[in-house]
């Protein structure tokens, strides 16, 4: 396991050395990102997609449920945020809450139909529901704007009563998203390492055993799916703010596939941070390789194939294995030195 992912000592702690390093890097992004030829909006995208991928990984990595239509909930969150702002009330907190609640309710609805399924049937059902939501988004032109999308969404100010922050500037919005991301990560970290997270991980390993230990497997599968949908929807709300619009393409099957690729390439199956690594790699590759060729997805696709073939545990798993090898070698070296000292070979 990668540092901080699963060891029992880390499990009970909300802040680990890995987290501190990550936060330090993220907090300084606007200071150096333009110097390396990139731009603050990329940072915003990475954080939002990271939150989405972490939520998605609750289902895929933690519960072992193959959901391939998760873009639907990200998109529902984006539309809910926009519709709330345009038609109900232009309040950031209420609209973000609406994004999470509506996506969560959609997740509950779908979960009720699919949670007694497993494997390929589960996967197909998630695709089918994802396609239904995507089609509804395209066809409900009067509500969603159809293929043109829901436009004129604003970045509402973050109002804290006594003080209000304008988020129209990308750097200000980056720090807002970073703060939200930090809260989201802390909540997901706690959830993953809670008794609930432990039961969900157990269900991934054996539904039968979990049921015979007295756990209502259906309830856990349904609730983790709904929770994941809600957080995905919340991320979708942030994405609508970032894009100043909500489009149906994020709900499509191929866009749902992106989050699967990000999660697997990063190593979401073995590490809490895997999806974040995958998102960073995917979006950076899109911009860096995409600047050189339109066929950047070809190269990312090749990377995906290589990882599935040679490192199915993803980059996080490969890093973890490398660190373990390094520690083992260090131990061996220390052991050899100690032996030399004992037998006098060091003289």
């Amino acid at each position, binding site marked *: 396991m990668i540092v901080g992912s699963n060891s029992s000592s880390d499990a009970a702690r909300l802040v680990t050395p890995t987290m501190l390093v990550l936060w330090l890097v993220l907090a300084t992004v606007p200071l150096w990102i333009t110097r390396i030829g990139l731009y603050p909006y990329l940072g915003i995208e990475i954080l939002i997609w990271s939150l989405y991928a972490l939520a998605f990984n609750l289902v895929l990595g933690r519960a072992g449920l193959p959901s391939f239509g998760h873009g639907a909930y990200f998109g529902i969150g984006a539309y809910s945020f926009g519709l709330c702002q345009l038609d109900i009330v232009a309040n950031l907190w209420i609209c973000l809450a609406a994004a999470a609640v509506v996506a969560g309710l959609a997740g509950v609805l779908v979960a009720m139909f699919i949670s007694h399924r497993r494997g390929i049937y589960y996967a197909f059902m998630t695709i089918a529901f994802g396609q239904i939501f995507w089609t509804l988004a395209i066809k409900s032109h009067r509500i969603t704007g159809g293929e043109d999308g829901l436009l004129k969404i604003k970045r509402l100010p973050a109002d804290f009563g006594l003080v209000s922050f304008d988020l129209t500037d990308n750097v200000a919005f980056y720090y807002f998203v970073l703060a939200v991301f930090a809260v989201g990560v802390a909540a997901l970290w706690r959830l993953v390492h809670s*008794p609930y997270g432990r039961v969900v*991980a157990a269900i991934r390993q054996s539904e039968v055993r979990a*049921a015979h230990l007295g756990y209502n497997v259906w309830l856990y599968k349904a609730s983790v799916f709904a929770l994941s949908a809600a957080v995905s929807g919340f991320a979708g709300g942030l994405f609508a703010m970032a894009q100043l619009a909500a489009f149906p393409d994020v709900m499509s099957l191929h866009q749902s596939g992106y989050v699967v690729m990000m999660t697997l390439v990063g190593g979401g199956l073995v590490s809490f941070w895997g999806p974040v690594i995958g998102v960073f790699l995917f979006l950076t590759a899109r911009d860096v390789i995409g600047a050189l060729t339109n066929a950047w997805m070809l190269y990312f696709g090749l990377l995906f194939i290589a990882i599935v073939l040679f490192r199915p545990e993803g980059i996080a798993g490969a890093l973890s294995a490398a660190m373990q090898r390094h520690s083992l070698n260090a131990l061996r070296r220390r052991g050899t030195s100690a032996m030399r000292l004992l037998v006098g070979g060091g003289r």
Partner: protein
Amino acid sequence: MSMLEAAGVHVRFGDRVVLESVDLAVAEGEFHGVMGPNGAGKTTFFNVLTGRVKPSRGKIRLGGEDVTGLSPHRIANKGIARSFQIMTLFDEFSARDNVMMGLPEFRARGLDIARAAAGDRRFAEQASDALAAVGLADKGDVRAKDLSYGDRRALEIAVALAQAPRVLCLDEPTSGLGSDGVQRLATLVARLKGKLTIVAIEHDMEFLFSLADRISVIHWGQVVARGTPHELQQNEWVRRSNLGKFA
């Protein structure tokens, strides 16, 4: 009143009748063995007792309460724990965490998302006690998949015991064990005898005949003989069958 009772249990898969009017009454503290040839319907009967298979007809009662057709998790919550013929553990979890999952107190907290699972020492201590009871005291931190076959069998029983069950159903507990492993298991079961109601499917006749209070023989989906080990040794059907050789 029996602790566990099956009355007229009938199971049909399509055209095939797997169990036909099977009756069983297990008294509190009794060790009841179930034996019979492969394909006789023993595991299906276990699956009916533990909720994996719903009977077409018949009743299952636990402590007098009708539990027929309840889902496995509800039956487990009412006090029936089981092990599996093909071992089913949480392989990525440590032995201690496997046992922890079985604790009723942990299960009651299963929907808690606010606290850390590893933060409560009581769970770890209770799990360690259950491991010590099956001789795995020093293997709490070892991942289930890294344990030896015999230790995995012992861990399955530790997990079931952690559930504080009223009835423990063991499906071929000695399967795949060497003579040392069988001896170790026999010692453990002998310790539990009288304190816990146990129903065990078993092919190891020596194990069963030395430990069971009563034994039911299932063949072609029906109970063809039942009695104490001594009575079964005198039973004409058992004597004529292959099973008689061992009895």
